[in-house]
């Protein structure tokens, strides 16, 4: 009998990625002001294929972060094109500073269990 768990795997990956993406986007914005497409390109490049995010997910996520006060946005002209640049706020930085150590501990803990 063949066991099909591909649906479960996808769902699990989606949930993990959803939680991590918020932190990753805030991490990127803590280094630089960026616009949406730029963020998606960096995530794709540095994310090793794991953090590749659909545009249909990234822009609503940015909008949510803005609504929650973690980022602010403004329209700016760059190379003759108007783009919406996102910048991390004090609240966003505070959030990031709180979750970063937790994430580092989590990664070490999971690694330890894997090696055990």
């Amino acid at each position, binding site marked *: 009998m063949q066991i099909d768990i*591909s649906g479960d795997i996808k769902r699990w990956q989606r949930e993990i990625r959803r939680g991590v993406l918020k932190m990753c986007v805030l991490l990127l914005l803590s280094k630089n002001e960026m616009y*949406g497409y730029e963020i998606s390109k960096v995530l794709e490049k540095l994310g090793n294929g794991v953090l590749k995010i*659909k*545009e249909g997910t990234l*822009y609503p996520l940015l*909008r949510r972060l803005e*609504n929650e006060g973690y980022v602010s946005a403004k329209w700016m002209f760059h190379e003759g*094109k*108007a783009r*919406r640049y996102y910048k991390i706020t004090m609240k966003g930085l505070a959030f990031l500073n709180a979750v970063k150590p937790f994430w580092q501990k989590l990664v070490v803990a999971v690694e330890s269990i894997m090696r055990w």
Partner: protein
Amino acid sequence: MSSEDAMSIIEEYLGEVRRYLPEDIADDVIAELRTHIIDKAEDMGGLTPENVLTILHNLGPPRKLASKYVVGRGRRKFRMELGIPEDLYPYFTITLAVLVIAIIIGAISSIIQSVASGGEVAISILVSEVAYTAVSIVIVAIFLYIAFSLIGSSPELAEKVKAVFRDIMESFGLRKTKKKVEPKPKRIKYKRASPWPDAFSATLSVIIAYIAYRINTLFDFNWLMSLLIYTIIIYFAANTVLRVSSFFYVLYSGARNYIIDFVRSLMGIIFIPWLFVANMYPEELQILVPQMQYVTQDDSQTVIIKSWELMTIPNDYLLLAKLVLLIWLIMAVVGIIIVILRYVRTRPKD
């Protein structure tokens, strides 16, 4: 294929997204998505319709994309729309099919039961069973249509309902959990409209109007039936005029005229007064009944229709006739409301 074609595809898509977005964020979201699509298309090698369609395909259906902006917001955009969105339509048809099958099975089992208990089935029972089944199906279809339209009015609710359906279908093995092949993006642009359906319909309308006129002169209808005949003649005459206008419009412009189509769809309204009156006086309804004659020739007997006679509906069927008229009246009113709402929703912006 030029960048103008690509831009028109982008604007068409963004226009759809905008319809489902809250007003306060719509301008910003649309401008941001537009910049994104153009940037990405340029990175892919240029602003061509092919590249744009691939990007739009990745962005997903407009309603679904808009719903992601709406989910989690305190103020949601709930636009009451009578009209089932494309992505919900398969689930509507599946539900309707299941219910129709259940109703038919119920009717068949009821007939079988009466055969088993009484030995034979009277034609009147059979006719009323078929009529009630048809009426039940119509009522179920109307309510289901309205229910799915309401669900479709809220993108968030629509996503939840779709997830429930997907789970049910997966549990019955009707739907595979994973699709490996990426479907090719569909072309969004509309094809050039054809004028020939208008020509066909205009011809048919003339024929029907003439037949109605001839029938009216051949038989001595009462006031209610005469009213129906005149309504039919006016309806088909008006339909002919509109179809001919539409034919020439489509022939020269290659597109359908929104106003003509809207007026034509609304014309069913002229039957509403008659349906209302007929519902009040069902005993005045008349039907044409063929008078049969048996002819014996060379030991063989054949049946021929001798004449057609006008008679009122038998008392046994009055209730049924009233019910059918009521359903027809409800369908006509709901139909008109749907047409108006769809017009308001999809009217072209100048």
